[in-house]
């Protein structure tokens, strides 16, 4: 049964909490179904996300009505939004009232509005298609990941189980809702009848911590960069009696930082759980059980309940020995159908059959814990976003910059023959919606190339 069809059983329990008040499950359902009432079953809608009540209400309403949402962030680059709009032709847009888009307004609720776009005569979508997420949302790729009702259910139940999410939990938002990790926290808490504290504020703002204390939040999630911030904020010295646990995903946490938080949280009698996942696997694939947080610092852990991890060598043969590096392969009911690059693709069936090649190179220790040691392809994780270096190069090229990209997680180095390095830096920060300090732009006389014209990235490392 689709994930939000059973919310009625939580009736009077508090579902959503904000600075301005809270609503119960009963109220959430009423509001969600009111949005659903304006939508046509099996239609496609853009859900423009922010961590506000309206966004969650609309999302729940869509899933309950079997409407397929495409999740995008309210701060999305305008060109990318237009591109997505023209490719996927949504019948509806659920968006913050001040968001710019085409279409006629149908109704308003909680700072959100529903628009009808006028697209018609659209191809049918696959029956089990539930949700569409962007792959990274960052490099302007309009490629979407196709998730089914079964994918979401399976992953949500698994997450609830290994994190032990009960009705008394209150997670506070620290990640965007259109990002699979942020969304999985919302889904698992609603499914458990727990509460979600919604805020647009960041760790770096006084208002966030005021709300944290007032609402007695019990958990939050963070990407590696979040943990650098928390370290700088002396988080492990903060007095937060309501906190139960914190989770980490969205890229590899440096071993020292992992260890510092694992030990610090343990000292406080609280849990620290490192996880591993991908949008292509709905959200989560692996986790380090809290009791192993210190002992297995630097690991991505073991497969989540219901899933299985395996390593494969270059010939496609399974590696059974520990200590040998191979590509990490995941099997489980949360492996999504595949990608979509056109509206017509939304009719496609399952292309992965429960098997995902992660593109991460990993090894297993003698206890069965996995460690990611590298990547098969050229991409970086920046502040939790997967950024494809080739795509960034193409964006720059299209706009007249000859440039090549290298780097490490959370920091990209762009080598260019163009003189306007600062303009390039501002341009790519604007396009990717990633803070400009993540980019260093270096001017060089010529891009190093081999005789056959291939870029010699190794000379730029």
């Amino acid at each position: 049964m689709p994930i939000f069809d059973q919310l009625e059983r939580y009736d009077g329990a508090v579902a959503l909490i904000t600075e301005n008040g809270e609503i119960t499950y009963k109220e959430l359902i009423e509001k969600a179904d009111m949005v659903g009432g304006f939508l046509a079953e099996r239609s496609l809608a853009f859900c423009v996300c922010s961590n506000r009540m309206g966004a969650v209400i609309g999302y729940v309403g869509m899933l309950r009505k079997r409407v397929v949402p495409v999740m995008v962030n309210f701060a999305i680059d305008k060109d990318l939004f237009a591109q997505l709009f023209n490719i996927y032709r949504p019948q509806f847009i659920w968006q913050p009232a001040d968001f710019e888009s085409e279409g006629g307004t149908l109704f308003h609720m909680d700072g959100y509005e529903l628009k009808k776009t006028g697209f018609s005569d659209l191809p049918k979508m696959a029956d089990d298609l539930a949700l569409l997420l962007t792959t990274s949302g960052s490099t302007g790729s309009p490629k979407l990941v196709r998730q089914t009702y079964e994918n979401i259910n399976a992953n949500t139940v698994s997450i609830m189980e290994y994190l032990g999410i009960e009705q008394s939990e209150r997670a506070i938002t620290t990640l965007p809702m259109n990002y699979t990790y942020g969304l999985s926290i919302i889904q698992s808490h609603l499914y458990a009848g727990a509460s979600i504290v919604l805020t647009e504020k960041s760790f770096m703002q006084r208002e966030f911590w005021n709300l944290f204390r007032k609402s007695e939040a019990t958990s939050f999630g963070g990407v590696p960069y979040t943990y650098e911030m928390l370290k700088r904020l002396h988080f492990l010295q903060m007095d937060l009696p309501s906190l139960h646990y914190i989770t980490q995903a969205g890229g590899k946490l440096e071993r020292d930082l992992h260890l510092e938080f694992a030990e610090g949280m343990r000292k406080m009698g609280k849990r620290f759980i490192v996880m591993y996942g991908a949008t292509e696997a709905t959200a989560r694939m692996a986790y380090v059980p809290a009791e192993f947080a210190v002992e297995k610092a630097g690991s991505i852990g073991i497969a989540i309940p219901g899933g299985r991890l395996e390593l494969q060598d270059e010939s496609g043969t399974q590696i059974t020995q520990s200590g040998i590096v191979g590509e990490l392969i995941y099997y489980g009911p949360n492996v999504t159908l595949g990608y979509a690059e056109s509206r017509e693709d939304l009719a496609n069936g399952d292309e992965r059959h429960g098997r995902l090649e992660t593109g991460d190179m990993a090894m297993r220790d003698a206890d069965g814990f996995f460690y990611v040691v590298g990547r098969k392809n050229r991409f970086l994780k920046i502040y939790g976003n997967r950024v494809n270096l080739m795509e960034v190069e193409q964006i720059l090229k299209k706009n007249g910059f000859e440039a090549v990209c290298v780097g490490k997680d959370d920091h990209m180095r762009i080598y260019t023959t163009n003189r306007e390095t600062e303009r390039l830096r501002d341009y790519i920060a604007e396009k990717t919606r990633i803070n400009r300090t993540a980019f260093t732009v270096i001017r060089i006389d010529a891009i190093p190339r081999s005789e056959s014209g291939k870029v010699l990235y190794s000379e730029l490392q």
Partner: protein
Amino acid sequence: MSNLEKYNQAFVDNFGVKEEDLPGLAYQAVDAWDSVGHMQLIAALEDAFDIMFDTDDIINFNSYEKGKEYMNNYGVEL
């Protein structure tokens, strides 16, 4: 470089703004001054003046002027 110059330089370097734009500059007034930018600014100031901010000063530091007041708490006169 004077303390004020060092203080200003941290804003200019991290946010890509001009020195004359600094008076009145507040958190989220420019794209670059988001939570990531704030963390970078704090890191740059801590390095430049060899200080370590308290949690409260980091989360209350929400404008160019407010930051100046906090610098005094660490014996940095601007």
